[in-house]
């Protein structure tokens, strides 16, 4: 019978002998296998961001939410209390941990300049200032107060907003407020397509 990794750890971590034999101490590893990772984790109730079943999920994080501690996700699973999914998740929901901890994430603002062939870094302040100036300039240059029939229309046809499928209701509401206030009529969303 071949010993499993777990058996190997059990066998070799008697007292402090392992440290002497291997030159390093296996005690922390032994401690790890006695307690489930999630036993000392925080549970956060969330909703799967994928399809519209809206499965309840529980995100397990290590870290007690004190100011000097950064929460680390260790596990995501279906919420057994949720009336719809009853603890189950599909292959997408089951892999959410790798969406949260993902080395492909965008981490800093970038800009591609006219004629450019690569991304350049830009500070948040510079990016937001430039964007705000462009929004204002485009709006001022294109704003239509009255149409050909003399009717008040107060709109710009030169700025578009396209919103995504995982934006919260509250984010959508803020967008509708801000975009309608700017006079944006090219206001569309994944909901259309």
């Amino acid at each position, binding site marked *: 019978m071949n010993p499993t990794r777990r058996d190997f750890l059990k066998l070799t971590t008697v007292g402090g002998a392992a440290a002497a034999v291997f030159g390093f101490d296996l005690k922390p590893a032994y401690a790890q296998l006695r307690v489930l990772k999630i036993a000392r984790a925080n549970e*956060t*109730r*969330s909703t799967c*961001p994928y*399809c*519209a*079943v*809206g499965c*309840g999920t529980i995100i397990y994080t290590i870290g007690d939410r004190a100011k000097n501690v950064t*929460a680390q996700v260790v596990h995501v699973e279906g919420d057994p209390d949720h*009336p*719809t999914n*009853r603890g189950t998740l599909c292959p*997408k929901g089951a892999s*959410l941990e790798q*969406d*949260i901890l993902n080395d*492909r*994430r*965008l*981490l*800093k*603002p*970038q800009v591609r300049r*006219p*004629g450019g*062939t690569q991304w350049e870094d830009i500070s948040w302040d510079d990016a937001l200032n430039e*964007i705000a100036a*462009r*929004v204002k300039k*485009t709006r001022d240059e294109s704003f239509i*107060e009255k*149409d050909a029939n003399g009717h008040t*229309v*107060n*709109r710009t*046809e*030169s*700025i*578009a*907003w*396209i*919103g995504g*499928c995982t*934006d*919260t*209701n*509250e*984010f*959508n*509401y*803020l*967008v509708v407020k*801000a975009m309608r*206030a700017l006079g944006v009529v*090219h206001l*569309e*969303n994944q*909901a259309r*397509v």
Partner: protein
Amino acid sequence: MTNGWVDIKNTDMMLIMGGNPAENHPCGFKWAIEAKRNRNAKIISVDPRFTRTSSVADLFCQIRAGSDIAFLGGVINYAIENNRIAKDYLVNFTNAAFVVKNDFKLPGDTDGVFSGFDAGKHTYDRASWNYAAAGGAANAGAPGAPAPLPEKVDYDLTLQNPNCVFQLLKKHYSRYTPEMVERITGIPKDQFLKAAEMYTSIRKDGDMKMAGTIIYAVGWTQHSFGTQIIRTAAMLQLLLGNVGRAGGGVNALRGHSNIQGATDMAGLFDTLPGYLKVPTPGDASFDAWMKRATPTSSKPAPWDSWNYYGNTPKFTVSLLKAMYGDAATKQNGWAFDYLPKVDRDYSWTHLWDDMYNGTVKGMLAFGMNGVAIGPDSNKNIDALKKAEWLVVGEIYPDETSEFWKSPRVIAQGDMKQIQTTVYRLPCAGFAEKDGSFTNSARWLLWKNAAVPMPGDCRLDHGIVAQIFLKVRDLYKKDGGKFPDPIMNLTWNYSDRLNPPLAEVLKEMNGKALADLEDPATKQQIKAGQQLPGFAWLKDDGTTSCGIWIYAGSFTEAGNQTARRDPSDPSGMGVHPGWGWSWPANRRVLYNRASCDVDGKPWDPSRRQVWWNETTQKWVGNDVPDFKADSHPKDHMGPFIMNPEGVGRIFAPLGAFADGPFPEHYEPIESPIVNPLHAGQSTNPMVTRFKDADDKFGTTKDGFNVVCTTFRLTEHYHYWTKNNPMNVQLVPEPFIEMAAEMADEMGIRGGEHVKVSSARGEYIAKAMVTKRIKSMMIDGKKTYQIGIPFHWGYRGIAEDEGKTARNLVNSLTHTAADPNAHTPEFKGFLVKVEKV
């Protein structure tokens, strides 16, 4: 969904068509299996491919993509011919008995179009699409304006009048014979008859106890007549008395976690939050807008109609008070001039066309990969080349932010000529922010933030807030065009740069701006308190509410969307204490129709709501979707949002652009000419763009294979191509094709094939399968192929060079449904070659 996920367990019969929930909504599909297991419910799966939904179905029919109206129209015809209809429901709860104007003509009598068509302009004069007024009175209306619905409608409860809705329906769909269904859909007549027999078996001998549900997804919406497919389903459900009932309804499985919420919230050009109509330039004032947008009831004189949209001014004034606060006054028409006026189509395909033609100069895209989403990705790339600026908010590198280094641009060698400035801003992932999603069942569920954002990411809504406030500062400092709506927009959040979303939900729910009292109950609400529901909304400026259908979601009792009581006292999957569902925490819409005219449940074993004679009130296991004290003898219609009070089998006037009854039209690119009317093969109300990139293929040019797109369980849209585990599960794109077709072409599974449409190409490995078979379409042997669309030119596999770095949507075209403006992603023509 009119019903909900868990409610599916109450059904006896499922028609699943235009959707594949076993693979695309797996954790919701368990309730279909529950119904099969516990109620012996049947599943009929109708799909271009034999899917995993089909594999657990009792009957599978392989249909040609884009022929759904023919199938459903055939079922309507079968139900009428075999008297499998819900007679009492039909007469009392639908407009079947309403008499239609004499000059209305069906497409069977007028060469494939309804009466009023102008072939030159491709427009309809819809005056004849109306009910006849009782006593032969002319429909009164303002001079010069089209006549509205008559206040008192002519009707015939015997349903014998040749111009009543039921007789017109019968006549219209009598053309959809099993033989015609076979010619159009490719479903052999005997198979079709089995399906029609099985679905309508719930109304055998007029029995009303059983309930059937129709379940669909984007397989229905993504056609140049998508809205009319769904209408055909709704009409069939009304005919069979299935709407409003536990285990019944018309159930749209929305594709994404908050697509329902985005629709409710009106992130769309043609509506305002809560499905209010946008103002047009022709509305000279707030009052004129309300006069046009507020319906008045239209019904048989002895009946009652609540006409709930009669409250439109209350909802609208409250919205404008939420948006503009004290700056919205009765004197300025509640800041009516602040709202942009809309009188043309600014929808998705028009937006890209306007950018392509230089009108749209700047775009903000947040979590929205417009290049990959298409249709016609190449056109969208060409459009972005002409934009001055693009702002992308994303969590992963996507095709849209990198359009300027797409394979198309590299092949054309013009990267350095592209003058577009692109900002790419790192946003927060779902686990890093709170807020509510509205699922397909209309349940709002609050989620909590679990982890901090990595790197230098910011909250999406914070970024928009910060941009907006900077724009406002610029207008304050420098002035500019009509700054009033920008300066006066309410933004009184405790953290203006990152508005706490719970405060935003409170604003959406609405509050009293003055002390209020309900005259009937004497209940009082103090100024500043949260409103308990939309019944409190006023049109005098004393209430504010960001979206009327969400009133009740965040009350004085707290955030209702965060409730977590899993109990289900009735055992019917209502779960009234879990989250909160719009409207008014009702779980099944139109549930008054679950009872007969006297207010008694059609099925006493599945009681939802009922009339309590003792208390003189509607009560039940769900919140009654009805006027609580309306006695059944008053005959108020259960479809309270319609001015008629009843369900619309015939949709009058401008409710739909392309006809009061759905008619089968061929997809814009089709292998056949419409067997019903060769002279009008496609939907006459579809507009096609005429730019260089807008090309359409025909069988004459060799495009003779019907192509449809689909999604996989293991992948989500264009997102999980960044997730190692999902990429490991299904690492590469593929093209699913029939074994017979592959044999004819000498293609073996795993070999590369090229699919071309008139617009673009797509290369991937062939997946040779028996899940799709050849079909006989109008006597012509026709192949269909299916392509999952989850890949592009940025992703794990793409970056490792393991794919052809191309987009399925470079194949699709821009023609869209004239009602919902959704493009025809499914059922277009391609040719297939071995590479």
